[in-house]
């Protein structure tokens, strides 16, 4: 499974372009795939630290998702409600490789001014997965 999710992650853009491949995954699959890409083991505490800290810019992940994203958040500029990010509280979170890549790309860029590394993504998912 990890291998197929890896392929999906690598090909997320292609999949989005052609829209044919099945993208069903689980948060565990995605975490494993990011860990495999980075050749590291995910650390939930590091994920929490990344999530709740600011990185030299106006927003942290928590600005929109809340400090512990088991509750609905609120978009920091538009005020639009955001469903909980922790998969235990919203089962379709991290169930689609292309969607996961899209939001990591955009939101890491907003929060850190760069894309997150596969290791950072694995850390964040590993923390979100233990929120029950």
């Amino acid at each position, binding site marked *: 499974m990890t291998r197929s999710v890896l392929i999906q992650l690598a090909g997320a853009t292609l999949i*989005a*372009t052609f829209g044919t491949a099945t993208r069903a995954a689980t948060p565990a699959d995605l975490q494993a795939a990011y860990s495999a890409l980075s050749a590291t083991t995910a650390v939930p505490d590091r994920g929490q630290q990344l999530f709740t800290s600011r990185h030299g810019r106006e927003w942290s992940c928590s600005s929109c998702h809340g400090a512990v994203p088991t509750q609905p958040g609120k978009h920091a*500029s*538009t005020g*639009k409600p955001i469903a909980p990010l922790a998969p235990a509280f919203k089962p379709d979170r991290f169930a689609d490789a292309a969607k996961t890549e899209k939001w990591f*790309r955009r*939101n890491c860029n907003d929060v850190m001014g760069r894309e997150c590394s596969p290791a950072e993504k694995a850390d964040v998912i590993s923390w979100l997965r233990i929120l029950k």
Partner: protein
Amino acid sequence: MNRLDRIPRTLWVLFALLGASHAVRAGDDQRGPSVVLMPKYKQECAACHVAFPPGMLPADSWQRLMNDLPHHYGTDASLDATTVSELAAWLSANSGTYKRVREAPPEERITKSAWFIRKHDELPVDVWKRPAVKSAANCAACHPQADQGNFNEHAIRIPR
């Protein structure tokens, strides 16, 4: 019935339809008729904000906006190229052509359109700053059915 006999009837139907759509526009408190929103538009754009009716901006505003999604009012809203072109085509086809909507507002902001400012000019300034409102772009704060394209005056509820 030969072909010539059919023409007047077809025209009458056309006149009736045009008349009906004109009546809806004239009586409705919004920019042009509301359109059925493309599911992908709702999915991608309304994830972060109200699904703004495409008729509230002219085609050239939508085009400039869709050409620069990585810099979208201070956030990265980038999408894959296929989705961008699908959304751009739909937005352009349903863009505003009605009276003042034809004029592109500053920064492609609906809230900076002359018609928007005029429509909201009786509101006290502090309303925009209330926590439940925060931003003039937060249509749904006062227009609870904004997501369905309904901005009718009678449905307005201004939060305290």
